C-alpha cells in the first residue's frame, strides 16, 4: 500500500515541477500568466468544438504511439514512426488515385491494408537488417524518416501532383476513400474508432498472444530466447512490421479523415511526439489512450495560448520535454527502490 501512496506523491511532484517550468517560461516571454492559463484552458475545454479538436489530434498520435510502443516492448527501438506515417499516407493516396472507381466498401479496407503494408515495409528494412546483420535499428529508422519525408516532397511535385494547380500537392482523393465524419460539424472521423480498435488489438497481441509473449521475451533477453528455441529473428521482424504498420495507419487516418489529399507536412512531427506519448503511456496500449489525449490537449491548448496570449507554441514542446525528463527521473528512482525491495 505504501508503494501506491508514494507513486501518487511522486506523480504530483512531477506535475508540480512541470507546471513550474511552464509558468516560468510564460513569465519569461513576458505574457500575463492569468491570460495565458485561461486561454490555454479555454482552448481545450472552451467549447465542444475545442474538445473535439483534441480528439482529432489524438487520433494519429495514438496510432503512431501504439506502433512505437510495440517496438519498445520488444527491443526494437523504432524512432521512425514519422517516416512510416508518411509511407502510409503515400500508399493511400496512390491507391485511391489509381483505382478511383472502387466502391467505399472495397476502397476503405484496401487503403487501410496498403497503408499498413507500406508503413510495415518501411520498418521491415531496419527490422530485417537488425535481425540478419545486427545493424542498429536506431539510426536506420531515423534516417528512413528523412527518406520518406522527401519522397513525399518529390511525389507531390511529380507522379502524384495535381495537374490543375501549381502547388505541390496531390489531387483530392475520390470520396470513396474518405473516412466517415462521426459528429459533424466537428472534425472527429472514423480514424478515432480505428485507433481505439487498434488499442484493443495491440493489447491482445502484446499481452495475450503467444507471439506477443515471444516478442516481449526477445526484447528482454534475446540470447535466452534463442537458446530456448524461440525464433528470435521472426519475433524482431514481426514486431517491426506491426509497429511500422500502425504508424502507417496514422498516415492513412490523417489523409482519409482530414486532408483528403497528400501535401507536404501533413504531420507536424506526430511520429516524434508519438515516442513521447508511448513513454508517457508506459508502452501500454491503455496508457497510450490517455497519454495521447493528454499530449493532444497540451498541443491544442498551447495553440490557443499563442493565438490569444501571444505565447509561442514552442513552449508546449519544451514543457513536453521537461515532463518526460521528470518522469524518467522519477522512474529511475523508483526502480532503484524496487531493487532494494522497499
Amino acid at each position, binding site marked *: 500500500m505504501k508503494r501506491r501512496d508514494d507513486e501518487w506523491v511522486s506523480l504530483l511532484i512531477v506535475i508540480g515541477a512541470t507546471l513550474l517550468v511552464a509558468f516560468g517560461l510564460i513569465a519569461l516571454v513576458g505574457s500575463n500568466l492569468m491570460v495565458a492559463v485561461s486561454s490555454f484552458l479555454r482552448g481545450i475545454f472552451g467549447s465542444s468544438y475545442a474538445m473535439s479538436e483534441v480528439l482529432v489530434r489524438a487520433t494519429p498520435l495514438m496510432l503512431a504511439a501504439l506502433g512505437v510502443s510495440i517496438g519498445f516492448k520488444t527491443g526494437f527501438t523504432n524512432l521512425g514512426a514519422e517516416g512510416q506515417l508518411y509511407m502510409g499516407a503515400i500508399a493511400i493516396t496512390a491507391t485511391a488515385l489509381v483505382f478511383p472507381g472502387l466502391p467505399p466498401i472495397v476502397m476503405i479496407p484496401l487503403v487501410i491494408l496498403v497503408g499498413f503494408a507500406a508503413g510495415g515495409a518501411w520498418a521491415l528494412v531496419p527490422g530485417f537488417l537488425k535481425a540478419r546483420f545486427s545493424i542498429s535499428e536506431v539510426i536506420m529508422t531515423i534516417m528512413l524518416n528523412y527518406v520518406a519525408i522527401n519522397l513525399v516532397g518529390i511525389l507531390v511535385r511529380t507522379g502524384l501532383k495535381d495537374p490543375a494547380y501549381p502547388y505541390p500537392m496531390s489531387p483530392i482523393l475520390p470520396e470513396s476513400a474518405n473516412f466517415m465524419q462521426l459528429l459533424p460539424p466537428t472534425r472527429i472521423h472514423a480514424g478515432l474508432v480505428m485507433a481505439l480498435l487498434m488499442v484493443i488489438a495491440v493489447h*491482445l497481441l502484446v499481452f495475450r498472444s503467444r507471439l506477443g509473449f515471444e516478442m516481449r521475451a526477445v526484447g528482454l*533477453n534475446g540470447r*535466452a*530466447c534463442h537458446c*530456448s*528455441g*524461440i525464433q528470435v529473428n521472426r519475433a524482431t521482424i514481426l514486431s517491426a512490421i506491426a509497429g511500422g504498420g500502425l504508424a502507417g495507419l496514422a498516415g492513412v487516418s490523417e489523409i482519409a479523415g482530414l486532408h483528403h489529399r497528400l501535401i507536404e507536412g501533413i504531420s507536424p512531427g506526430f511520429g516524434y511526439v508519438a515516442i513521447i506519448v508511448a513513454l508517457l503511456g508506459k508502452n501500454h496500449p491503455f496508457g497510450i489512450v490517455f497519454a495521447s489525449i493528454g499530449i493532444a490537449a497540451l498541443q491544442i491548448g498551447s495553440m490557443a495560448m499563442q493565438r490569444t496570449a501571444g505565447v509561442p507554441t514552442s513552449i508546449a514542446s519544451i514543457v513536453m520535454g521537461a515532463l518526460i525528463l521528470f518522469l524518467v527521473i522519477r522512474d529511475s528512482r523508483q526502480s532503484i527502490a524496487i531493487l532494494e*525491495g522497499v
Partner: protein
Amino acid sequence: MPVLEMKDICKSFFGTYANRDVCLEVREGEIHALLGENGAGKTTLMNILYGMYQKDAGSITIDGHEIVFKSPKDAIARQIGMVHQHFTLVPTLTVQQNITLGLRDSGYPFSRERARCEHIDRLSDSYGLKTHSRALVKNLSVGEMQRVEILKLLYRKAKILILDEPTAVLTPQESDHLFAMFKQLKAEGCSIIVITHHIQEVLDHCDRVTVLRDGCSISTVETKGIDAKQLSTMMIGRELVPVARERQNHHMDAPVLELVDFGFKRNGGKVGSVNLSLRQSEILGIAGVDGNGQKELLETLMGLRDHEKGKMVCCQQDISNASTAERRLVGIGYISDDRHRDSLVLDMGIAENLMLRPARSTAATQGHMVNKQCMLEQATRIVKEFSIKSHGLQEPMRFLSGGNQQKLVLAREFIGSPKIIIAFQPTRGLDIGATEFVHNQLLAMRSAGCATLLVSTNLEEILLLSDRIAVIHEGSIMDTIENKAVDITRIGLLMAGVRTEGAAR
C-alpha cells in the same frame, strides 16, 4: 576481537523476511563460512554488508566502530570487497580495465595503463592467480573470471573479502587453489567470508561456520569438532537421508544421439572433434577440466554455434544443420551453465519463464493465444514440485535466490518428457537438499527413457550418476569407459591428456 560484527540484522522484501535477527561475527585472519539452503538469505546478508541493500534493523560494527554503508562505494572505502554469485565483469573490456574500473589513480584523468598492468600482473603472480592483464574478459573461462573478480578485490586492498559461492563454478583442483590462496591472505591478516554449498569445503578449509536457515542465523561453530552430518542437520533442520539409488541397468536400445566426427569451433580459433553415441535410458557423463571445449561442444549441439564438420544424428534424423528451435522440437532439452544469459528472462515472472520454449511444445498455448489459467496452473504445480521459494508466480525472476532460479530452469527443461537432456553443471549453486533432488530427477528421467549428456566439472557428480564416462581434453574425447569400478587416477590422467598404454581396453 572481531573485525566485523553484524548484530540482529533484519531485512524484508515485500513483507517477508529474508533476514531476521541475523548475527555474524568475523575475526581477524579467519576464513568464515556461511552455510544455508537456497533462499536462506546468505546473499541478502552479504549484500547488506556490502552496502547494496539497506538493512531494516540491526547494527554493523567494523573494528569497533558502528558503520552505515549507503552504497558499495562506502564499503570499498572501508576495505570490504565482494565477489557476487553472478559475476559483474564487462565482457568487452580487458582484465586490467575491469579491475581498475571506477578507480582514480595518480595522474587521473590520464590512465597509466602500463603501470596498472604491471601492478596487476605482480599481484596475480604473488597469489598464484595466473591471469593475463591484457586479455579480454569475454575470452576467459569462468574459473579465470573468478580470479579476475578476486584480483579486483586485492587491487582495491580489501581486508574483508566476501565471496558468494565462489566454488560453484570451479573444478575441485581450482577450488583447492582458491582455498590455498585464501590461506595466504589469511596469513596476511585478511578476513574472508565464503558462501558455499559444499560442506566438505567448509570442514576442510574454513575456521568457523555460521549457518543460516529461513533467514535466521542458527549458530556459529568452530569447524574443528563438528562433522558433515551435524552441519547438514543444522542447515536443513533435519537429518539428510541419502536416497538409495537404483542402479539397475535398463535395456539399452539403439543410440538416440550419435556424433560422428563431429567438429566444432573452439574459442581462440581451435577446432574440436568428437565421436560419441548416447543410448536411450543412459546417462553419459563427460568429465574434464573446465575450458577444454565443453561449453563450445554443447552450444554447437544446441545449434547455437555453427558446426564445423561431421554429423549429428538424433533418432535416425540428421540434425547437423538444424536450428535451435528444430532441435528443441526433436526433443532436446538444454541446461546451460550460465542461467542469467542463456536460460532466463530476469524481468519476467516464474510462470512466463516456464513458457520459454518453442510454441508447439508449450501446454499453455491455445492456437495463437496464451491460456493464462493453464499457464498459472502449470507454474503452481512446478513451484510446489520443485519447492521453488518465491513471493508469487508473477514475481520477476531477478528477485529469486540463485538456487531457486536454477530449479526453475531444470523444471522447465524436464517438462514435456524430452528424449535427450544436455545438462551443463545442472546443480550449480544448489544446496545439498536440492542437489539430491536434481540427481533423483535426472535418474527418474533416465528410468523414463530419457538419454542424458551430463557435463560437469565435478567428478563426484559424474561418478555418482553416469552409466558411462567420457573424458574430454582439448576438444576431443580421450576415452569412454563404463562406470564400473573405475580407476580414478586413470580418469585424472585422461583429464590431463595422458593416455596410459596399459589401461587401454
